[in-house]
């Protein structure tokens, strides 16, 4: 699964589910957050963790295009090997979704969240002995900016107007517009810190970072091997002596590699193999709730979907439980037509929960004088795995409400170019975003580039602008809650399911709570996990 399919964004973010911002979790615009060292998620994990051994990780999407240049990263293989093992960011997403310092120790925003001052960790060294300074951080961000940038982090860095260093250990970032979430955005995996070059730019070619592992070998699309960095700045980490990320694109071959002991962990386990793995006492399946959601999107600007009654009838005419049971074999959670994931910090309940009610759907349409509703639903296998089967079930569910859904199977190739954003009712695969602000700016405000639901709601846009730089957290949470309720009541998204990252691994791999914002424990499995058999 790649990040670049046309909709995948940077990381999203998760946090404790309580709405009140926790002191360390969500950022007050003016709060000063100081973080000491990072500890694994649950106490006691540290004692259990043993030193030594090798982690061999079977990946699904490495590519011969993979390169060390951070702007080009768009596979999980690059993310886990380079962002998570070779490098550090200024900030780190903890497994519980809160934000901690990494190469930055603390940060502070001004009153309107336009100016952020980061105090950097001192005494950190790159793998070749160069000392990490504010200039390295500055150049690592500048690398993604500029006229002809084609970086994957463009959407984030384009908010930055100036980056200044203040001595060796301070970085001051000025934004063109207030953004209370800005420190979260610096967790984007492209924004890894590399050594600055004399005269500007960064030296990514040497493959030198500050991370828990040093690069030993890199064969694009085949394998990356890294060895322990004894001078790592986090005490007691990492546990492994070496990590290997191996690309195995075929799901059967991936499973066989795990069964024959070629690798210790595999990602993207085929749902049909889950029971087989769970029957094997030497293996375990590990699921982490993620931001990823699979949807059927209705374009609210196009008839008949411009009629709210039609949208609501269709939301009531789908049996989500049935689709999850039959298509995803239980591997998914029902959504409530709110694209914000429950693991995100500002997620809000959006009552009532949509349930399958064909009679209510029929009554709604009757009231609106739309009894003869016929709609085309465009799907393909590349929209999301199981999209065609889900659409066919939806057709059967809707028929009971008197709605005729004509399922059109579009070509796999070019689906994202020719169908998505173009056909009024289509299937979509969303990877979520770091913050609700970014999620909405990407796909739900009137002028968003990926407004697949053609959603144009003045109140929603106004709230989006207000909440962005709002420093009063209670008010801010209320604004985001209202936005989510608007999407639930009036939006064009039908969330078929929220899915988890699904790994299979041998019982010999130990780990604490795993983060679900990015795959592979927020990319940081190499430094967080350990072997139990060494």
């Amino acid at each position, binding site marked *: 699964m790649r990040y*670049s399919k046309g909709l995948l964004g940077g990381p999203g973010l998760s946090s404790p589910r309580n709405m009140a911002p926790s002191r360390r979790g969500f950022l007050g615009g003016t709060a000063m957050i100081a973080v000491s060292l990072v500890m694994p998620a649950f106490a006691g994990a540290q004692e259990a963790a043993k030193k030594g051994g090798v982690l061999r990780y079977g990946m699904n999407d490495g590519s*011969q*295009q993979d*390169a060390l240049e951070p702007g080009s990263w768009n596979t999980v293989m690059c993310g886990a090997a380079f962002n998570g093992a070779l490098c550090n960011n200024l900030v780190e997403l903890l497994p519980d979704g809160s934000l901690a310092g990494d190469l930055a120790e603390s940060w502070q925003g001004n009153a309107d969240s336009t100016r952020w001052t980061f105090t950097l960790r001192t005494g950190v060294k790159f793998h070749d002995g160069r000392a990490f300074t504010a200039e390295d951080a500055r150049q690592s961000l500048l690398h993604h900016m500029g006229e002809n940038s084609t970086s994957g982090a*463009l959407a984030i860095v384009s908010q930055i107007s100036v980056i200044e260093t203040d001595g060796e250990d301070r970085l001051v970032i000025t934004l063109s517009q207030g953004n209370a979430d800005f420190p979260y955005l610096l967790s984007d995996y492209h924004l890894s810190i590399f050594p600055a070059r004399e005269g500007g730019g960064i030296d990514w070619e040497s493959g030198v970072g500050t991370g828990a592992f040093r690069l030993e070998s890199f064969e694009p699309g085949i394998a990356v091997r890294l060895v322990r960095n004894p001078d790592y700045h986090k005490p007691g980490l990492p546990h492994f002596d070496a990590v290997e990320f*191996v690309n195995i694109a075929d799901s059967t071959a991936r499973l066989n590699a795990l069964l024959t002991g070629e690798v210790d962990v595999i990602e993207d386990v085929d749902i049909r193999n889950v029971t087989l793995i769970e029957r094997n006492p030497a293996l375990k399946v590990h699921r982490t709730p993620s931001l990823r959601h699979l949807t059927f999107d209705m374009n609210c600007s196009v008839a008949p979907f411009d009629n709210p009654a039609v949208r609501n009838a269709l939301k009531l005419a789908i049996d989500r439980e049935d689709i999850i049971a039959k298509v995803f074999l239980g591997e998914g959670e029902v959504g409530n037509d709110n694209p914000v994931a429950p693991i995100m910090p500002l997620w809000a309940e959006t009552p009532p929960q949509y349930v399958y009610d064909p009679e209510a759907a029929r009554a709604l349409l009757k009231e609106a004088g739309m009894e003869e509703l016929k709609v085309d639903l465009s799907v393909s296998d590349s929209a999301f795995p199981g999209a065609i089967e889900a659409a066919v079930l939806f057709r059967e569910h809707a028929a009971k409400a008197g709605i005729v859904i004509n399922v059109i199977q579009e*070509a796999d190739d070019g689906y994202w170019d020719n169908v998505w954003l173009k056909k009024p009712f289509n299937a979509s695969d969303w990877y979520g975003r770091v913050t609700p602000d970014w999620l909405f700016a990407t796909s739900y405000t009137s002028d968003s580039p*990926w407004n697949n639901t053609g959603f144009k709601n003045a109140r929603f846009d106004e709230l989006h602008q207000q909440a962005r730089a709002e420093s009063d957290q209670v008010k801010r949470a209320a604004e985001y809650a209202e936005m989510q309720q608007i999407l639930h009541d009036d939006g064009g998204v039908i969330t078929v399911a929220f899915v988890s990252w699904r790994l299979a691994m041998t019982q010999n791999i130990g780990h604490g709570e795993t983060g679900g914002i990015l795959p592979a424990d927020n990319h940081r499995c190499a430094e967080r996990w350990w072997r139990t058999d060494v």
Partner: protein
Amino acid sequence: MNKSSHPILSMVVSRIGLGFLSLLIVSLVIFFSVSLLPGSYASAILGQNATPEAVAAMEDKLGLNQPALWRYLSWLGGAATGDLGMSFAGRPVLDVLGPRLRNTVTLAAITAVIAVPLAITLGVLCARFRGRFLDRFLSTSTLASISVPEFFVAYIVMMVFAVKLQWFPSMAGIRNSMDWGEQFYRMVLPILTLLMVILAHMVRNTRAAILSVMASPYVEMARLKGEPEGRVVLRHALPNAIGPIASVVALNLAYLISGVVVVEVVFVYPGVGQAMIDAVRNRDVPVIQACALIFAAAYIGFNLIADIISIISNPRLLHPR
């Protein structure tokens, strides 16, 4: 050069000319059909950042705003001199494909060295002992293995030898850091799979080619003269069946270069087939074009050699009256 070889010489030269012409036509088809692929590299790579400006900057960087004909000619000119240009990811195509091509050719060569002599021997034996146990056994088993899709053969081989018996690793993911022994050990299963796939094809065709010659009057004549059956097959039938045998061998060798994608994927073997899939997924056009050109050249080249072999082995041309 005596007079009798002139017809051969002129035929061989014209075949070679035709080969180059086909390659030229294929290169045109490749270049212009790749541009028909939906989607673009810029949108595939930029993903979330595919704003019109970023796409324009990317296309500018890749030189995609030049006229198509000009791009085609410069690509062709480069390819003719062994320069396949730069992949969109910024590495020379030769650097991307070089190691992959070496892996594929290694796999193909080892398989071919085992398969070709074995297949011809078995085919000749089938023809010689037609209808006996050996022939019936081989005909049945080759028919069975032709009827099964190759990915299935690959999975069966993997299940038996890697998962159940654990004799060989399930992954053939060879890397530069491994020594020769280790690399070969990891290649056993893909080689075995490919052998099962191409042996069957070649054995059946060899047998058929020889048997069709065996039906001709001069074989009857040889028999009437009292030649032993083995000698009839080897001395009279085989030389005249070389042409068709050469074509089927050529076809299978070309398949080994270009058609092993499935086997490469299943065994995670880093060959050129996987590189092409990867490139198609990313819309990395220079790499796709280079792969297609290499595959086309392999097909045309092997067929050319087969043609030349059948021309040279044609007694009518060898001994013109």
